[in-house]
């Protein structure tokens, strides 16, 4: 069967819910960040697939993907800075050990 829009939508939906599953079950902050990266990737795949198969005369999906990649890079950098700071003060990056919400 010729792969088309529905195949890519299947992949991106599956990747999204794999990320959601990881986010619900993991306790470690770094692995939760990895799950968020999977979710963002599935969104990018969706934008590119719609751009390719439904609106090939525009490039809007492509630009949204570019901007999402840039925002994801900024988000990952800030998250890792926060995680390293948390590890310095709590000696653990488990979400259950970080519950005071104060400096």
């Amino acid at each position: 069967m010729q792969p088309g829009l529905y195949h890519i939508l299947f992949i991106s939906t599956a990747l999204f819910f794999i990320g959601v599953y990881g986010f619900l079950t993991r306790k470690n902050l770094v692995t939760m960040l990895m799950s968020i990266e999977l979710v963002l990737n599935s969104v990018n795949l969706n934008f590119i697939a719609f751009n390719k198969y439904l609106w090939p005369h525009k490039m809007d999906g492509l630009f949204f993907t570019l901007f999402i990649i840039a925002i994801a890079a900024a988000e990952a950098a800030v998250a890792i800075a926060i995680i390293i700071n948390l590890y310095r003060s709590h000696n653990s990056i488990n979400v259950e050990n970080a519950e005071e919400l104060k400096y």
Partner: protein
Amino acid sequence: MNGSDIIFYLLAAMTLVCGLLAVTTRHIFRAAVFLLFSLIGVAGIYFWLQYEFIAAVQIVVYAGGIAVLIIFSIFLTQQAGDKLPKQRIDRKIFGALAAFCGFALVMIQVYGHTFFETEEGEVTVSVFNIGKKMLSITDGGYALPFEIISMLLLAAMIGCIVIALRTKKENS
């Protein structure tokens, strides 16, 4: 079923299997490596769709930047070789149930919907066209979001430095 289809299915299988292993394995370093392969599989799907620029950006930013950043943060925060603690089984079951129900719901919606393609001619997604569109300020150009993204990156960079800065103890 020709070679192109086989390549697509291989890339899809690589992406999904590595993604699944990345969220289920108990070795955190292996999880990072599986995540890297999953991201490379997504980049391969972009290549398969002939969006070479996006694929290159995906490899440079995700596989080259974010994966390395995650691996470094694992080295900084984790003892080498020890496993993550076992998760509670009820949390696993309910997480899988929630994810599967959401997946089924979305797939039912997608397969019940018919998408209509436009009849207009295809524009080539060359780097020339992308750059021209990104920096144009007329007819739907993306100059303003481009500038806002650059401000956001600058703010994120300064924020990272400020957050991760080691503060001196006041009484020592």
